[in-house]
């Protein structure tokens, strides 16, 4: 059985042009997107297997050198479901983040905070049959960036999610409940609806923490829902 995805509700997302995040001014598309019905090209997408992943890919505390990284030991976990409430199993999640001081291990990051010799900042995992995933990492630090003369990013973890089909492809950022920089973070504030931004603010999940070891935050991800379609009947006879 094949499915096609519900139209994306663009009101849940930032518009392309958000001048307070200045880089969008020369990079935002200005002409309307061409709305197209899903074809096989959009309901299909890449699939991934555990064979491609390493044992420590989901453990950013240890996956750079084996020795533990500095910082607040943190579990991030949750479920990937779709707009129908169904789990999305086998979804590849890739994460990247700054270290506890707010510095990225990237050739283009020149922030004054030091690199942690034991932190790479890169991880990945696959959701299980119930859509569940979990990472262990250190809480990233806030950091400044060139936008206004004193713009800061609140602490965040970048998430890349591959759903079941190309139409579900999503990159976003997870924030931490109660972050005091939320109201002035120009990138978080590209999302016009505060209730939508709320859904990127992962709540503390004390019950999932590991006593004397790690705090936990819960970040549930919703991808686009889908409906059964008939158009594949033609394909089967083709």
């Amino acid at each position, binding site marked *: 059985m094949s499915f096609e995805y519900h*139209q994306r509700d663009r009101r849940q997302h930032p518009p392309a042009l958000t001048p307070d995040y200045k880089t969008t001014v020369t990079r935002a598309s200005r002409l309307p997107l061409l709305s197209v019905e899903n074809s096989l090209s959009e309901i299909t997408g890449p699939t991934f297997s555990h064979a491609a992943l390493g044992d420590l890919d989901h453990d950013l505390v240890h996956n750079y050198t084996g020795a533990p990284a500095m910082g607040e030991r943190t579990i991030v976990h949750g479920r990937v479901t779709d707009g129908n409430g169904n789990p999305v199993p086998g979804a590849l999640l890739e994460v990247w983040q700054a270290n506890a001081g707010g510095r990225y291990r*990237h050739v*283009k990051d020149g922030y004054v905070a030091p690199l942690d010799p034991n932190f790479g900042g890169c991880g990945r995992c696959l959701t299980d049959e119930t859509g569940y995933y979990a990472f262990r990492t250190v809480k990233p630090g806030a950091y400044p960036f060139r936008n206004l003369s004193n713009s800061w990013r609140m602490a965040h973890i970048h998430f*890349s999610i591959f759903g079941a089909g190309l139409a579900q492809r999503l990159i976003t950022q997870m924030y931490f409940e109660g972050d005091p920089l939320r109201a002035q973070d120009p990138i978080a504030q590209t999302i016009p609806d505060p209730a939508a931004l709320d859904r990127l603010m992962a709540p503390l999940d004390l019950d999932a923490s590991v006593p004397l070891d790690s705090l936990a935050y819960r970040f549930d991800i919703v991808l686009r829902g889908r409906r059964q379609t008939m158009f594949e009947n033609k394909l089967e006879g083709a």
Partner: protein
Amino acid sequence: MPLENPRETPSQTAGPFVHIGTLPSLAGLSAYPAEIGASIAGPEVLGQRIAIEGCVFDGLGVPVGDMVIEVWQADPQGIYPHPADPRHADAASGFTGFGRVATDFETGAFRIETVKPGPVPGRHGHVQSPHLSLWLVARGVNVGLHTRVYFGDDDTGADPLLGMVAPAFRRETLIATPAEDGVYRFDIHLQGDKETVFLDV
């Protein structure tokens, strides 16, 4: 009470350090023995070997040096290696259909090495001309951009998606120009007079 279905998680920009998570070797990290999207079509895949070369430009014509481009395509028979394609069991062995490249930090140039896809079944019995689906993310791009690459040496006159592009001159932004030896030229303009047609799929 209005009907409340779960809402899609909002998108956020991939930011300038997207390579750490998606192409770590370009960030200067050797995180993984094999990076995802390194090969669209392994050497055993039969078909016409092609490369797509181009640059990404912003609205001022400045190269975009921090973009990651993902490719999704059918195999030379037009089959997707995915269970939603009824013919997926017949997809070419060694064909992933998925590739990932980044633009050069200074020049904004990219190169995609693959095999030419076959025509793909469309809706209502129509056939889609051979194409690559692209998905683009970068700093300053708030929601990933979908677009397609068609091939200038194919007859694309009956393609249902190209037929929807109006005004018609903008169709050219989706068509790669054949150069020499299987190389096609395809520039991407995020904004401006030559803005690429982006899709809401």
